[in-house]
């Protein structure tokens, strides 16, 4: 092709990549959920409702875990330790199945192999069983802040694989069963042949700072078996606790700090990345948070990349240059982002690419609506507007549309409200809310004429109190 045609195609590609970069996770997830919900609603009623209820329960549990920072441990468990198969030993080779779980060039796999070459991998082969479920820790890689466990589980009851329970994420406990400061970060499974009882995977735990990890600890995990097709039998879960002794290789205490200074200021928020800390298994980017508009913003979701060279957006998706994003920890003053480490590839340059961050406030926003007029009578934000939907309203139901901003079509009309409103007497009543992309959020209030107005609604999230920060040009930090 000629340069001109190449350029034109590249322009088209750039447009797509920019659009993809700008799309928020919430917006995309909402579109997917709406489609699935619509399909589910058209399928059989009771089953759909069951599935939706299950999904809400699971999502609530996952959210609770994510936001609160760890759910309570499962009440009571039985522990039947299986004798360990001898002394643990250092071994360069990580289990073969781990290599199959990641792309060859995935930085996470590269990191594991390099850690193993530096004596950080130890074979354990330690098992516990209860209720027919067996957990075997085959080995572990650890440094002063992170533990990566390689495990297999076997379901002795049925030919169905086990998975970690959504409701009870793994926990780190001390010798007396008390929770430790370190916590579960993520886990993944190897590809499984169909209908077989063996699961192979890894689990990752993080301590915020080096020195917090005790030499001996216990790992509590809760397992459920995958549900058979069409089964409505309740899923059996078992809690397994396994003791682990941390093996400190000569490089386990390796750690390096690099001061960095990357300022990102948008929408009254300033994020300043101040420090990069690397140990063999984790890269931390520490940041300070400042707000110029006085909004107290507590929950943060951030997406950023650390790439080993400056790249066009399309190439940045390559695993061989990008460090895996693991987790964000945040306080009102700042926080840290955890990524895969490139400690043993430190000769490589690193580029910080800030894609997106959103903050949520720690309080709800209250609005009041006059049901007779179908109008807002109280709002703390003049950008919130309300429109009556006469075509969708009736004597039994009031239909309203909540919007944000002045643009038409409404681009930012996503609202998440508490699922009840209160009438003038302070009595709570349920209503239905539904977000439509580019239209706003529809509220449907049944039997509205029976209740005294005005009605008060609490908005948990909307574009006025969720603060979004967008992509910034990448900057070299090493």
């Amino acid at each position, binding site marked *: 092709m000629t340069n001109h045609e190449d350029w034109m195609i590249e322009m088209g*590609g750039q447009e797509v990549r920019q659009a993809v970069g700008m799309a928020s996770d919430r917006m995309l997830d909402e579109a997917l959920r709406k489609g699935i919900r619509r399909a589910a609603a058209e399928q059989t009623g009771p089953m759909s409702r069951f599935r*939706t209820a299950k999904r809400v329960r*699971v999502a609530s549990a996952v959210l609770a875990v994510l936001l609160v920072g760890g759910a309570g441990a499962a009440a009571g468990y039985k522990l039947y330790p299986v004798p360990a198969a001898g002394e643990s030993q250092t071994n360069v080779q990580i289990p073969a199945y781990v290599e199959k779980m990641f792309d060859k060039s995935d930085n996470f796999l590269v990191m594991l192999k390099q850690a193993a070459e530096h004596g950080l991998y130890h074979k354990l082969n330690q098992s516990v069983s209860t209720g027919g479920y067996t957990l075997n820790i085959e080995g572990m890689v650890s440094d002063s802040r992170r533990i990566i466990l390689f495990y297999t589980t076997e379901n002795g009851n049925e030919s169905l694989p086990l998975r970690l329970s959504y409701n009870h994420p793994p926990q780190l406990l001390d010798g007396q069963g008390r929770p430790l400061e370190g916590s579960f970060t993520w886990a993944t499974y190897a590809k499984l042949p169909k209908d077989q009882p063996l699961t192979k995977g890894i689990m990752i735990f993080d301590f915020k700072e080096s020195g917090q990890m005790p030499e001996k600890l216990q790992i509590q995990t809760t397992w459920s078996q995958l549900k058979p097709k069409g089964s409505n039998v309740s899923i059996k879960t078992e809690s397994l606790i396994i003791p682990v002794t941390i093996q400190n290789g000569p490089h386990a205490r390796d750690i390096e700090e690099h001061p960095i200074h990357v300022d990102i200021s948008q929408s009254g928020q300033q994020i300043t990345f101040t420090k990069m800390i690397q140990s063999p298994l984790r890269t931390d980017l520490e940041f300070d948070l400042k707000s110029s508009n006085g909004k107290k913003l507590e929950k943060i979701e951030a997406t950023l990349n650390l790439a080993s060279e400056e790249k066009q957006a399309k190439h940045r998706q390559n695993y061989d240059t990008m460090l895996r994003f693991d987790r964000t920890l945040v306080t009102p003053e700042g926080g840290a982002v955890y990524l895969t480490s490139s400690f043993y590839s430190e000769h490589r340059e690193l580029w910080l690419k800030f894609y997106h961050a959103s903050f949520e406030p720690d309080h709800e926003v209250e609005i009041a609506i006059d049901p007779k007029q179908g109008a807002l009578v109280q709002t703390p934000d003049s950008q919130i507007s309300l429109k009556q939907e006469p075509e969708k309203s009736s004597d039994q139901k009031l239909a309203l549309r909540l919007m944000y901003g002045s643009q038409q079509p409404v681009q930012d009309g996503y609202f998440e409200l508490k699922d009840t409103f209160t009438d003038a007497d302070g009595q709570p009543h349920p209503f239905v809310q539904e977000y439509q992309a580019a239209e706003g959020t529809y509220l449907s209030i049944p039997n509205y004429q029976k209740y005294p107005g005005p009605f008060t609604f609490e908005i948990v999230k909307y574009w006025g109190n969720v603060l979004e920060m967008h992509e910034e040009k990448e900057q070299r930090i090493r």
Partner: protein
Amino acid sequence: MEEHNLAVAACRGDEEAFFNFLSLHKRKLYGVAFSYMHNEADALDMLQEAAYKGWSKCRTLKDPDAMLPWVIRIVIHCCIEELRRQKRRQRIVLEQSGTYTPEMVSVAKLDMEKALNRLKPKYKNVIILRYYNDMTVPEIAQILGRAEGTVKTWLHQGLKQLRWKINYGGELQHDQS
């Protein structure tokens, strides 16, 4: 949960697993939709439509490992259908109003879109997936259910025709397939 397990669970009727699977690939799916629709609202609609169709037919998918190419294929079909519908609607609107809304769109972009729209769908699909979504030939072959050799031929022919159509100012040329 690992991708394969999610796909397996989705095929068995686990709605949450299907959502999680799609959510893992949402940016890829959105990218494909945006390549065809060129605006956020339509691309989101297509994402929603594909999720709707996908979940409606999920149980008919025999190989869970083929779920991603299968969903991408659904996104492409949704976009093509919608573009056909829009074409019909646009014609009616233009006839009624007889006006043109100027937009800040570069001539090059319009030329490229025009040229792409004049390609046979098979050529347009492979070019969009290859150059707008950075997919490899084997990935495209899997998505379109064709041999890799066929995809390579289509890419070659598509680019040849694209060059022809761009260089001649968008004048409609005879297909050379």
